């Protein structure tokens, strides 16, 4: 059974009256405690700021290290286009070193290649480029 609100209020008033003579502190002594608490609060705030900056620096260093690792693993970008397809097969105007017109051969659809001659033509084509 819970006491009703009136009964609780009466008892509270009675207790407050009984304890009204409880001693009170010296304000000067409490002020000393306030100074101590203030100093501790300032130290705590400084420590928190240091932790925040240290955390940020650690994150930045970690990010930089990750980027460095990724660059090393994947190699730097070359920036140079690959040789076009069929570069080793020169155009019709050009001829191989042995006088073979490999372009005409292609156009005729012969489909055959004299490997050595087309290889020589490829070398001349690349050198020309």
């Amino acid at each position, binding site marked *: *059974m*819970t*006491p009703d609100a009136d*009964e*609780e209020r009466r*008892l*509270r008033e*009675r*207790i*407050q009256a*009984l*304890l009204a*003579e*409880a*001693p*009170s*502190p010296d304000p000067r*002594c*409490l002020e*000393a*405690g*306030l100074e*101590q*608490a*203030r100093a*501790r*609060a300032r130290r*705590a*705030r400084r420590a928190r700021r240091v932790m925040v900056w240290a955390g940020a620096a650690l994150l930045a260093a970690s990010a930089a290290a990750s980027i460095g690792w990724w660059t090393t693993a994947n190699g730097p970008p070359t920036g140079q286009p690959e040789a076009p397809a069929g570069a080793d097969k020169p155009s019709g105007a050009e001829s191989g070193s042995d006088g073979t017109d490999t372009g005409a051969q292609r156009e005729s659809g012969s489909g055959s290649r004299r490997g050595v001659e087309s290889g020589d033509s490829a070398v001349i084509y690349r050198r020309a480029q």
Partner: protein
Amino acid sequence: MAEGDDAIRRWCHDGDERWFERFYHAQATPLWRLLVLRGVDRDEAYDIVAEAFSRFIQQVCKRADAPRALLYRIALNLGTDRFRRRQVRAVSDTDPDDLHAPESPPELPEEARRLMAGLDPGERDLLLMRYWLGMTHREVAQVLEVPEGTVRRRAAALLRRLHEGFDDTRCG
């Protein structure tokens, strides 16, 4: 909301020391008086208040849901720790004078001293926090780290005891 809780939350938010001072001035005096009524020596009570606020500062901004309850919990635990250390020293020094329970201050009326002496430590803390400082059941539960229902039950039992006790004194 407990008096000063909003001030300490503002201090946590923007670091303005004036909010912290406001909270300190609101809570330091009742906290000191509570400690003395629990039987702590007056000079020691100043030390405990200062130490409690120092520890409070380190913890409060991490969980600012019940700042006043946190402060009182720290202070009561410090008071209990010091009393137990004195007891241990008293046993080792074989000084029985330090083994007795803490006494109420002599300024209190005889009736109040008898009332406090007749309560166990848990009942005394509940009486002081709930019916003297005016804390809510929830705050007392947060200080004592027990469920709110437990505090309500204990408060009801305490009131019944006090009611009977006061009736006896009136009749006696």
